[in-house]
């Protein structure tokens, strides 16, 4: 397939704050192919989260386009963007953003309760058609090692368990691409390593993903590493595939 899964062209984002404008992204070109794992490095404040939000349909670019399977995401109407967020991308936030009132299981399931159920299965979907959302959520939580924490509220989960729930939620609707924003940023080395192992596993299974990080260990797992500097992406020297 020649068409990339997710693609950004000349992407720009400028914030207006108190009459001054702050250029955070300035002509970013970026692609992710099916099954590819791309790591984005960059210093704090360099615009990594901003880029990820734009890729995930959470924000609006001030310049450029984001294409998902060739379709211009921000040219779609609002409901279609909602659907894009709901079905095509999975998000794992830096702060995880689990809903505090819901149990781990409910937090994972809610992704399937928002929006209409998917009517067509995509290639590479290993789940059987008969799996109910509940069973799928339970399976995902078991998969991330939380099979015995289904009823726990986020507040009752440990620091290493929360990102796992967030990852399970991000995978719930079997997204084409998983966008994770510093998933190990708040974790100690050991827990961080085990979460990373989970991403590695998912990647081996063919899950396309974009990992934002400033952690070299994360970067090493990626097929490709890019660095965000001065609002633009540069291929990182010495990484596995140093071409954009």
């Amino acid at each position, binding site marked *: 397939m020649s068409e990339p899964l997710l693609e950004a062209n000349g992407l720009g984002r400028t914030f207006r704050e108190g009459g001054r404008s702050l250029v955070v992204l300035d002509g970013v070109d970026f692609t992710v192919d099916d099954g590819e794992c791309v790591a984005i490095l960059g210093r704090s404040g360099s615009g990594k989260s901003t880029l990820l939000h734009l890729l995930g349909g959470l924000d609006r670019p001030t310049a450029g386009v984001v294409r998902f399977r060739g379709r211009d995401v921000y040219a779609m109407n609002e409901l279609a963007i909602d659907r894009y967020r709901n079905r095509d991308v999975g998000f794992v936030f830096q702060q995880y*953003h689990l809903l505090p009132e819901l149990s781990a299981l409910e937090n994972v399931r809610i992704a399937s309760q*928002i929006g209409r159920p998917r009517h067509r299965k995509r290639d590479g979907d290993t789940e059987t058609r008969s799996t109910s959302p509940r069973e799928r959520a339970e399976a995902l939580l078991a998969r991330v090692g939380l099979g015995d924490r289904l009823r726990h509220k986020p507040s009752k989960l440990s620091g290493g368990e929360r990102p796992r729930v967030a990852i399970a939620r991000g995978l719930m609707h079997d997204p084409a691409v998983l966008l994770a924003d510093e998933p190990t940023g708040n974790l100690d080395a050991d827990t961080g390593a085990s979460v990373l192992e989970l991403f590695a596993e998912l990647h081996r299974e063919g899950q396309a993903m974009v990992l934002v990080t400033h952690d070299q260990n994360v970067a090493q797992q990626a097929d490709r590493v890019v660095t965000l500097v001065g609002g633009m992406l540069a291929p990182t020297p010495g990484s596995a595939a140093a071409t954009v």
Partner: protein
Amino acid sequence: MYKLLLILKYLRRKLAPLFAALAVTLCTAMVIIVISVMGGFLDMLKDSAKSITGDLVIEAAFGLRGFPAYDGLTQRLETMDEVAVATPAIRSMGLINFANGPTPVLVHGIDFAGMDAVIGLQDRAVWGEQDVADRTQLIEEMGGYERQGLERGGEAMREALPVDPGEGNGVAGAWLGVEVFPGNYRQDDGTYDFDNSFVGGSFTLTVVPVSERGTLGSVEPARQTLLVRNDFKSGLYDVDSQTVLLPLGVLQRMLRMDERMGFVGDVDPDTGEGGELQVVAPARVNRVVVKVDETTLDTRTLEEVRDQVDTVVGAYFDEVGVNQPVYVDTWEDQHGQLIGAVQNEKGLITFLFIVISAVAVVMVATTFYMTVLEKTRDIGTLRALGASRLGIAALFLGYGLAIGVVGAAAGTGLAAAVVTYLNEIQAFLASALGVTGWLAVALVGGAVLGATLGVVIGFIRRHLLWWVTVLAGTLAAALFVPALGLVLFKTGFAEQLNTTFSFQMWDPQTYFFDTIPARLDGLEVGLIALGAVVSSVLGAVVPALVASAQDPVEALRYE
């Protein structure tokens, strides 16, 4: 789907919705209680106001000159679909004599059966048949009316009189307004004591007749002894303190409004023969009281019926050649002042209602706004997971709806309980507040004292909850047990408490109703509950819009 789940979670997990629902509950309950009590009060006033006027009154314009042909008139009126009953009556001024001298009264000559059909006179009787029968028998056994302790009634009362409550040779019977006889007084509980009543006693009534042409002076005042057969209570003090009811025929004779016969034609002045005995003056009344058919009033106003009756009366009088002017009034026309006050109250209630609703809306809106702020990041999360703006707005509107429904239901239940048991609550407050308050103060005071101490000690000992629980429980018990002991074993203590601390929400001695009038009107309650739900949803609209207007990123970045 996720909306319902989240609404249920939000309702259960947070204190804020509890407060919002409580606010709705209290507002709803308050409005329903106020409306029910005021409505009950107004209903009772209206009912009282109708007690002597029925729905409509046809009244002679020139008072005591009255009008003839009233039997034909009532018959004609009763042929109308709109009229249920029509009964003739006379209203006149009079004087009655009790110990404290002559008292001016309004004398109503009525057909008791007819009046009963119009206004349910029997239901307004103060004394039961048994009481009256016992008293009558007692008087008969004594050979007439002579009762100790009624010297205050004056000479006329102490006279032994044969008991003949009819209109015949003996003494005609009369009903007094319950406040007419000075011996009757309302007790603490608002009732009257039969032993004080003047039933079976007699009094003298003086009225001044007016000639057919409406002139005074040529006739002497008429006096007659009447026997009190019962008292009646309309509920309007003005009516009950100065009204005497007696048989129409008796009053007609006293006022010379009865049928007069005379010889018409050439009468030989020497022999007194010749001529023809004829009615020279027909019997007259000065009012006809009308009860309007109830189903008619479902579709038409009383004013419309009044105007129609007016036409019928005019036509009938033209037909029979009566030319005395009459006018037709509704009971509201007759009690203009009272109705003015009633109307005023209604306006006041509506105003209060609007204020309270506004308070409810603001409360809900504020609570919601706080909730939305608190939930901003969750909203961002939901949007990131694909929830639409509409979905978020619906979530919070549904939340408002849920709070409104819960609050309104609880409020309606609370109000229904309070209104149903209002008089019991009043009785409790008036009679048992002392002991209850005493015990409650001991219990709550002990708990608060213990909790305060617990906070201090627990803070120092770093075991807050434990100390607070233990000390609050212990001190509450330590105060409550001796307090209960005092109430149970120290004689007279409980009574003293109850008499010292009592809260009289309703004083039946002041008001003329012996119970707090209150009724629950299904339609009113339904509308108020609906209003509460709508208010809650309205209160949630702005926060819901705010919540849904945010971009996902903005919401996610919210701190």
